[in-house]
């Protein structure tokens, strides 16, 4: 069989590899690989329970996000991560209902990323953090 050395052939082989190699060790046995994935799951269910969308709408958005990723260049460059697709589906539904503003989300995420985790814990606090004065 001729080895296809073109870029397209190479890409095709990589997608084929993604579709045939099934890692099942360690984290693959878990439902959630990272803490944020459990939050993403719970927020999506909470939004549904609070009437923002039918669960079937969420499932359709998820199917769409997965299909789009599988059909795109990204499936050749990025590792498969299910909850990335889940978060995309959640964002698109919440944006579609007007509940979420994309730029507001970007801004908030940036703030979180650029705020050092232990902002308040680097210094010894030698004074009371709050005082309720005597009357």
């Amino acid at each position, binding site marked *: 069989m001729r080895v296809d050395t073109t870029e397209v052939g190479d890409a095709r082989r990589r997608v084929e590899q*993604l*579709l*045939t*190699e*099934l*890692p*099942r060790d360690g*984290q*693959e*046995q*878990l*439902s*959630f690989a*990272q*803490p*944020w994935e*459990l*939050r*993403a*799951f*719970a*927020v999506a*269910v*909470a*939004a*549904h*329970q*609070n009437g923002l969308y039918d*669960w*079937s709408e969420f*499932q359709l958005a*998820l*199917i769409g996000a*997965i*299909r789009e990723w*599988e059909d795109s260049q*990204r499936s050749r460059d990025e590792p*498969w991560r*299910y909850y*990335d697709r889940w*978060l*995309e589906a*959640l*964002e*698109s539904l*919440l*944006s*579609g209902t007007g*509940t*979420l503003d*994309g*730029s*507001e*989300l*970007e801004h*908030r*995420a*940036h703030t*979180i*990323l650029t705020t050092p985790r232990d902002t308040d814990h680097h210094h010894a606090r030698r004074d009371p953090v709050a005082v309720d004065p005597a009357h």
Partner: protein
Amino acid sequence: MTRSEITPSPAVTVPRSEAEIAARMKALEALMIEKGIMTTEAVDRLADIYENEVGPQLGAAVVAKAWTDPEFKARLLANATEACAEMGIGGLQGEDMVAVENTDTVHNVIVCTLCSCYPWPVLGLPPNWYKQPAYRSRIVREPRTMLREEFGHDVPDSMEVRVWDSSAELRYMVLPQRPANTEGKSAAELAELVTRDAMIGVAPVRA
């Protein structure tokens, strides 16, 4: 509404680091809570339920009851959603469940080819490998080979393998065969033998 209007941001085409995506999720949750769409307590409670309370031990109890109570088994195979409700088991992604029975001649295995539909109330949330493109495509193309090569589950050629595609409308679970030499065991003891993988159909139940 067009697709471009609901696409959250152009940054979505760039792979994000784990830290970036974790921050994005944290931001999303914070905004929803600030807008009064949901409360931290509600999100915490849901996370706890699906991480710790809903799991394959519930499905295992259903299987063990079916093994020990023929009338319940008949009801389970006729209408799994109603039969599970008898045991107080039900909820999101469990509205329409079907139990497919393994026999001496038929082995069943479940998949969701499009995403990850799965009967949450009886099996909990699916493991990561169930959501992998590799599982979703190959189990349909060559189930017998995949069961043998990936799961070490050798289904004899004399048996038929049926692959059931769960969807948003209908979710399957496998009712595995009761292992031999378990006649003296109680339903509670039997339930301990039933694994998540057995109810997905990628492993047998061993006594």
